[in-house]
Each structure stands twice: as C-alpha cells, then as structure tokens.
C-alpha cells in the first residue's frame, strides 16, 4: 500500500548502494527534514524547543557516539559523561582563549580533543573485555570529572568553578551559542550539526571501517584471524565515539544550558546515554534517536500528562508514579522487542511493505 516498489529498478551500483534505496523512504526523510527544520521552529513553543527538542538532539548525538563504540564495536562504555565534559571544557577553553576562532572550528577541535582522551582510555580495551571493560571507562569518567573540578585552569579560575558559554556567531552577527542567541538559531544550528554527523556516522557504519567494527564486535579473535587489527579498530571506535560525545558535550554547554558545572556530566549521564543506546537499538543510528526520545521525553511527558488531561496530582506522588511507569515501560518494550526500537521500526516497515497481506 505505502510501498509500491514494483517497477523501481536500480540501474547503477551507486543507486543500489544509496542510504535510502527506496524512493518512498527518500521522500519520507525529506518530508521529515522539512518538518524538523521549518515546521517545528515555526509552530513549536519555547518550552517545546528549548526543553524537548534541544536536549533531544544533543542526547541523540551523544547516543550515536556511544552506539559507534558499544553498538557497532561491542565495547561497553560508561565514560560517556566524562568525554562529554571533555568536549564542553575544551570548547570553553578554546573559545575564551581564542575569541576569534569560528564556533564550528571550536566544536571540531573540542571533538578532536575528546577523541584523543577517548583513545587514551580506550587502550585497556585490548586486554579487558565485556562488563569488565566498564572499569576502564568508569575510571575515565570519575577521573575526568574530578580533574575539571580540581584544576581552576579549566574554568579560567572562576570562583564558582563553573563555565559559562560565551556568545559566538556562525556568520556575521547571527549568534548561535549562549542564551543571547535566539532559540530558533540555536535549534537550527544543533539540528544542522546532528544531521551532518548522523549521516557521516551512517556512512561510516556501512563502509569498511564500520564492517571492521562489527567484525570485532561479533568475535574479536575471529576478526583478528581475518586480518583486522584489533588495537587499531578498537581505538578508532573509541576515537570516533569520543569525538561525537565531545561535540555533544560542547553543544550541551554552549547551546542548551549556557552555564554548566562538571557534575552535570557525572556518571548518571553516562548511564542515561547507555540506556538510550540499548533501548533504541544497539548498532543502529536511527535507534539512537528513538532511544534519546524515549529516555529524555517519556519522563517529561509522563510528568506533564496529568496536567494536560486536567488532573491535579500531588507533586511527589506524580514523580514516584513517573518512576514506576517509566520502569515498567522499559521492561515492557524490552519484552516486546529486545533488540530495541530500531528493530521495532524495521518490523513495522516490513509490515507496511506487504500490507494488506500478512506475508
């Protein structure tokens, strides 16, 4: 019904290997892009843009980062918060030390710095595997947060030990960072970065490097025998993952909250992003978006729902029920589809292709 593929033929390898080989999908994605770039900033109110969409985009980017490492390369990481903090603090130092540096270059460089830190803490992954690898990334997490807290140099010796994102323009005097920039500008800027990086990640995942990661994930010894160098592959996953997380962290500080303290990137943040990756679907870029939506938006929706429906619920009970329902929903969705939302989406698409026939 929705997918009529009869008569659509690919006449070149390029067409056959496109990210979205089916025209219907391309149209859907294009429509989605228009909605995200035009309709949402125009129709969404401030609350929706600033507390739903912005955090969602940034978390989705961090989740893509972690998905590269955990989903594609199979290395469990609980250091995401630390790498995000690295990106945030690097961006702050760079943009205050070199006020003329363009914001895109600042973000790029802070991502690179986070990538270097990621490589350093990824080194033990050659020897430590599975759940045990969590210890190396947790060491990174606690050490990095402690370091940003401890040394005043990272905050330019601010008496409060916090960093405040300076206002920076993308071109001319169109500000895109800190609260002095308009919300729409910040949202569109974040959207642009996330879309570009998501497409890059998608293409990485289906090229040589992505296949190497997946070979390592599925069985590293077998991959090694086939001639894939485990050290180089694992470290490249750590580097790309931390690069994404670093940029997400910098965006969190520069586009979302404006002022952050290191504790904003504590271990709970790492757990939160790991949850997104698992429930969204390990090894799926689209799943990272679903996971971010689920973990960030669902609790807010649950908390707001009684108000929208016109019920008055005591504040504390509301929070407790929110926790309980959230927990039950996590278990429920895992039972429905353990492979995550990405798989659920795929099944749905298959169904639509065959509709109205069952198979």
């Amino acid at each position, binding site marked *: 019904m929705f997918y009529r593929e009869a008569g659509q033929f690919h006449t070149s390898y390029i067409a056959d290997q496109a990210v979205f080989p089916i025209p219907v999908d391309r149209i859907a994605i294009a429509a989605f892009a228009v909605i995200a770039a035009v309709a949402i900033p125009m129709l969404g*109110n401030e*609350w929706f843009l600033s507390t739903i969409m912005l955090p969602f985009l940034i978390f989705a980017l961090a989740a893509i980062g972690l998905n590269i490492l955990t989903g594609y390369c199979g290395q469990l990481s609980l250091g995401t918060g630390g790498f995000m903090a690295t990106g945030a603090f690097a961006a702050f130092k760079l943009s205050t030390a070199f006020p003329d540096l363009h914001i895109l270059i600042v973000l790029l460089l802070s991502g690179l710095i986070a990538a270097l830190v990621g490589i350093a803490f990824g080194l033990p992954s050659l020897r430590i595997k599975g759940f045990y690898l969590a210890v190396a990334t947790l060491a990174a997490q606690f050490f990095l947060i402690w370091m940003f*807290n401890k040394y005043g140099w990272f905050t330019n010796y601010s*008496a*409060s030990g*916090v960093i405040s994102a300076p206002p920076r323009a993308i071109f001319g005097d169109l500000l895109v960072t800190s609260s002095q920039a308009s919300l729409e500008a910040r949202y569109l800027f974040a959207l642009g970065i996330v879309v570009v990086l998501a497409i890059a990640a998608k293409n990485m995942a289906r090229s040589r490097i992505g296949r190497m990661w997946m070979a390592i994930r599925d069985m590293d010894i077998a991959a090694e025998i086939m001639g894939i160098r485990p050290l180089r592959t694992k470290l490249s996953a750590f580097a790309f993952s931390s690069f994404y997380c670093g940029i997400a962290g910098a965006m969190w500080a520069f586009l979302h909250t404006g002022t952050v303290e290191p504790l904003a990137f504590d271990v709970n943040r790492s757990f939160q992003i790991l949850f997104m990756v698992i429930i969204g679907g390990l090894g799926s870029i689209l799943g990272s978006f679903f996971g971010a939506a689920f973990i960030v938006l669902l609790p807010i929706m649950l908390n707001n729902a009684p108000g929208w429906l016109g019920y008055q619920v005591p504040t*504390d009970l509301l929070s407790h029920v929110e926790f309980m329902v959230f927990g039950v929903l996590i278990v429920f969705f895992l039972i429905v589809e353990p492979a995550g939302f990405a798989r659920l989406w795929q099944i*749905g698409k298959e169904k639509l292709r065959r509709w109205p026939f069952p198979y």
Partner: protein
Amino acid sequence: MKAKTLALAAVALTIGVTGTVATAQAEGEQFIPALVYRSGPYAPNGIPFANGFGDYLAMLNARDGGVNGVKIVTEECDTGYNTDRGVECYERLKNNGPTGAAVVNPLSTGITYALIERATADKIPVISMGYGRADASDGRVFPYVFTLPATYWAGADVAIQYIQEQEGGSLKGKKIALVYHDSAYGKEPIATLEALAAEKGYTFLKYPVAHPGLEQKATWLQIGRRDRPDWTLMWGWGVMNSTAIKEAAAVGYPMDKFIGVWWSGAEPDVRPAGDASKGYKSLALHGPGADSKAHADILKSLYDAGKGLAERGAVGEVLYNRGMINAAYMVEGIRTAQARFGNKPLSGEQVQWGLENMEYTEAEIEKDGLAGLISPIRLSCLDHEGGGKARIQQWDGEKWSFITDWYEPNRGMLRPMYEASAAQYAKEQNLTPRACS
C-alpha cells in the same frame, strides 16, 4: 500494536507542540512557579522547604487575601534536584498566569546556574536565597539574579568572625579546616577563607568530599586523628551532612568546634546521627522554631482547617522556616513593586524593579509576623545581596536554638571580590554591565 503506539505518540506530540493546554488561570492573580524536590536523594531536605514555601503563601491568601488584595497562586513542579528537569519545569511554568512567572526560586545550585542566563533573557528575576553564585550580588552584571540575604562568601566570613570571638580575638597559629562537597557549591567559600587566612594568620586546611559523600572515613581520620584542626567548617549537602557528623563523632572530634553552613544545619542533617550530633553548630540565615506570629497564623488558618502541606509537628523545622522566609522576601519584593506599578499582577520585569528597590525594615518584618526570625535587608541596583546578616545556631539533641546575636559580614572585603569575579564573567560573556546611578 504499532499503530496504537504511533497514534499515542502523535497525540503526545500534538499536545507537546501546542504546549500549555489551558491550565486553570484566573485573572487578577499573581503566578509564582514553585520548583521543588519532593523526590530523589535530596527529598528529605526538599520536602520541608516546599511545605514552608507553599504554606506561607497559602496563609497570606487566607489571612490577607494575598498581597494587597492580589492573590498569589503557585504551581509545584518536581525537579528531583536534577538540573535538566529543573530547566524543564522552569520553561513549563514560566508563561502561566496572566503575567507569566513573576519570579523564580530555583532551589538548587545547579539549576540556578542553568537559569541565570535563561531568566535574564526572559526578564524573570531569580532569587537564589543563600545558594547559587556569590558574584551575582553585583547587580550591574547580573540584573536579574538576587542573592539575598547573604552569600556563601558572607557566610564563611561570619563563621570566621564567630571563631575569632570564641578564640579570644586572635586566630594566629590556629588551624581551621573546611570539609566540602567537591562541586561548584562546595568550593564557593574557599576563596574567602583563603583571603581571611592571609589576613588573620590561621592555617587553612581543605578536605574535599566526593559526591555524594556516603563514605568519608579517609577525610575524618585525617581531621580527627592526624591534623586535629581547632575548628572545622562544613559545606555539605544531603547525605553528606549526616555522614560527616557521624564520622566526626566516631573519631572523637568535638561537636561544638564543628560548624556547618546553613545547608548543613537542619533536622534531616542531625537526626540520623542521633545523640552523636549533640552540640553541633551551624550558620543560620533565620531563626528556628514555630514561635512567631506568622507561624501562629499558618497553624490557625491552614492546619486547624486541615489544609497544611506538612504534618503539624514539622511546622517550624529549619528548612520549613527557610521556605517561609524565601516566600516572605519574595512577597516583599512584589509589594515594593506594587507600590510603584499598582496592585495588580505584575510581570517579571516589574518585580525585578521591586526586588531591587526593596527595603525590608524591622517594622515591616514585625508586621509580617516574622520578628526575630530574620534580619532587615535593603537592596539596590548595585547590591543584590541586601546586607543580610547571619547567626550561629546549635543543636541540643532535640531542637536548634540561636547561641549568638546577628553577625554583620565584612562586606567591605567581600564586595571587591564579588565585583572582580562578576567582571570576569561579563568579559567572557561580552556583556556590558549596566550603569547603576
């Protein structure tokens, strides 16, 4: 299954995008959002505060019909002490009521940081009463942030004044230690204590405690068994406080030489430690107990009618009172603004003017039924702290009571420090501080 999920998501999204589905808002009422935390790890501290805040405003509505006849309505939003959720609460509530949120009390250092710039852009004043960033006292750089009645820096100064008095006027050669939550909050007093150490000649020792502070054995072995400072100050929060008191008792550190900041001096901090906490002291911005006229009014107009938020016995707890006091300062700001803009619901911008020009005198405090609880303050465009004072209270195993009179923080020393720190912020942010004259 899928269709249903999609439909559900679509409904949620529509509601979300179109946003605030008309919540009951009456014309002629002043809306105040209440960002509280009644759940999560810090709930034991958040609950009494939220109750005091809500009860005081409800009492005003019941007793006086609001502020000069303008009823105050609040809506609670649970942040769980979580910065992300705090920001969401703020954005959710800021446009409610006929004039939007007139003032916001973030009630967490992390949320305060996140709101400073947002609220400034939205022209909604932020009252960070006894928390947040001390340098926001400079009203030229932070026009919409208020640190009344005293900052952490002022608190640190008061503690040293008290210690000096106890030591007979000289701190030469004494050792004073600070046990602090290793975060932006805990580090606030360090600069002040270091500056004072240089001036007064005491040795300053620092002991950071990693968040959340469940385990402090190493810290207290150093303090109680090796370094043995003459006095110990604490900037702690939540579970860290009771743990510290317990560990201090375990290593035999004398409780009456142990002084906490005002966030380390409430019932939930000392009760879990039991008898061990007897004699423990803390700074106080306001009085404990339920003896004032305002308390009597609350008990009469709310609790006798069964409408109070807390249990009757909890009225008058330290954090309950802090909620009341926070509400009282805020109401005084609104009142000042009403004197200029008229007795009607005011916008954030107008209340900002009110807060900036408020003068809460002894007589007015008396009239509000808060005599003896707080010290008078007076704010200005330049000074958003208002010259509040602090005193020392002590826990006797049953209740807190004042043991000193009010101390005036040495603002002659602090003010240049605020200004230097605020100037650095202004420079990073490319802000031009407004002129105050």
